[in-house]
């Protein structure tokens, strides 16, 4: 088993703690918490998903309904129809909890579809650039650099003004803004894998490009892509909220978390809950994805595996 231990790194025989020792300590600590750090965020995100699917249905949520008697009621108020709005109501008398869950539904849907599009595009680009190298790599990665230098907000405003507001447009904008991350991570993973002996073994068998990319390189990229996707999920939801808050996101009448927060800002002094509670919900969701992504990274990191 000695061979499996990390190499000793000491510059001199002088008594300084070795890097290997530190790595091991980090590994122990990291592994201890990893299971909890994975399960807890998954449960939280799961609750959001369940809530987003069921709550609007249970409440019979209708975004266009206005109930002026029930406007701006604080959390826990009994409404005119006898139900209790335990998170209060907004400026047009909608139950805030139902509205938030409807918003979560939009946010999650936008997040998921963006990930699929950005992920597909980014992973494909990353695989091609990494596998073929040369001019293909140069061209694709320069495009990625240009993309990174172009602010997503600007793109969103541009697209909203050209195509008009709509969920599809948001997904397009966010996909364009986020594919680069996938491309970069995939490419660097491919570059790391490409010279591994088992990939060369595939080439020595006579495997073609398609076989190497799909059957050998792609499976090796799954773990880092999953990590990035999780972290990006949070980013995308946040970006959607930001765009909606700025008024270039979801169209009026579609209550996303961002647009609900935005709508509440006018009533911050009189009805604090309209902005604050969706804000907390948003923060909780983004935090959960961030922690999950971080935990997945530790989980898949072979250097953090036990000896």
């Amino acid at each position, binding site marked *: 088993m000695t061979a499996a231990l990390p190499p000793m790194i000491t510059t001199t025989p002088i008594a300084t703690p070795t890097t290997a020792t530190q790595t091991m300590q980090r590994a122990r600590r990291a592994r201890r918490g990893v299971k909890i750090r994975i399960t807890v965020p998954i449960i939280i995100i799961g609750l959001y998903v369940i809530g987003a699917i069921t709550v609007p249905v249970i409440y019979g949520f209708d975004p266009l309904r206005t109930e002026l008697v029930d406007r701006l009621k604080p959390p826990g108020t009994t409404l005119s129809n006898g139900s209790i709005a335990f998170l209060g109501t907004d400026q047009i008398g909608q139950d805030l909890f139902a509205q938030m869950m409807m918003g979560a539904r939009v946010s999650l849907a936008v997040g998921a579809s963006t990930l699929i599009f950005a992920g597909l595009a980014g992973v494909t680009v990353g695989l091609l650039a990494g596998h073929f190298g040369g001019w293909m790599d140069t061209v694709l990665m320069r495009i990625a650099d240009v993309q990174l230098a172009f602010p997503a907000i600007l793109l969103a405003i541009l697209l909203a003004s050209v195509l008009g507001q709509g969920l599809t447009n948001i997904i397009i904008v966010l996909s364009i803004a986020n594919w680069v991350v996938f491309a970069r991570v995939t490419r660097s993973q491919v570059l790391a894998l490409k010279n591994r002996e*088992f990939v060369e*073994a*595939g*080439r*020595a*068998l*006579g495997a073609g490009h398609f*076989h190497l990319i799909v059957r*050998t390189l792609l499976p*090796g990229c799954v773990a880092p892509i999953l990590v990035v996707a999780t972290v990006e999920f949070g980013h995308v939801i946040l970006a959607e909220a930001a765009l909606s808050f700025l008024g270039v996101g979801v169209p009026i009448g579609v209550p996303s978390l961002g647009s609900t927060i935005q709508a509440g800002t006018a009533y911050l002094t009189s009805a604090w809950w309209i902005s604050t509670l969706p804000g907390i919900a948003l923060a909780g969701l983004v935090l959960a994805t961030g922690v999950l992504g971080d935990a997945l990274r530790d989980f898949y990191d072979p250097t953090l595996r036990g000896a």
Partner: protein
Amino acid sequence: MADSTPLLKVRNLRVAYPIRSSVLMRHIGDNVAVSDVSFDLHQGETVGLVGESGSGKSTIARTIIGLVKASDGSIEFEGKDIARASWRQLKSIRREMQMVFQDPYASLNPRLTVRDIIAEAWRVHPGVVPRGAWTSEAKALMDRVGLNPDYSDRYPHQFSGGQRQRIGIARALALRPKLIVCDEAVSALDVSVQAQVLNLLEDLQADLDLSYLFISHDLSVIEHLCDRVLVLNRGVVVEQGTVDQLFDNPQDDYTKRLLAAVPVVRPWLEPT
């Protein structure tokens, strides 16, 4: 052996890696890894390439197997020039030449089972073994290289180093090749296991009429296994000959130095 055309005929092989300027990627020179290497390898024969790090021995192996492009010279397999072969011809030549890699840990895809690692060859070359027979054929190969066929659903990390190298050999055998290039194939193994693998290679050669191109830095292994040997130093063949010629009567200074440096297990038995 010498009566027929050689299985592999290498002439004036030169491999150079271009050095490019960092800014404009202009070609500003060459890093020559191998130059003017020529040799023949006949059916059923084992030819050894021996040399120290940087001698170019692995580059030659990788060029022959097609992982590296030759800059000049020719490589003929059964009379067909690999450099001039069409894509389709090349693919069929590739079937006849397989490789066993040095590192039994890195050369097996950790995400595939042993069965899938072996079947990978049949996936790449359809028509060799029908899909329905993959499992039984893979098990037969495992049995042939001394692995328990019941373990065909296990992953590489569940095997020891020597067993993994057997998996690598089974993979190389899957396409029933004529030539197997062994690049430091036993160097990473413990002594007791190394002897097992060397014996296996010898058995397979006898049973399947295989030819080996055996690359190693370990002169005792080369001496044990090979019929003929090429000694490489800095990309150039400094001496070649039969094992007897080379080990009993080395001509080149570098060969002599190399032989003198080989550690002797019982130095007290050596004449001083």
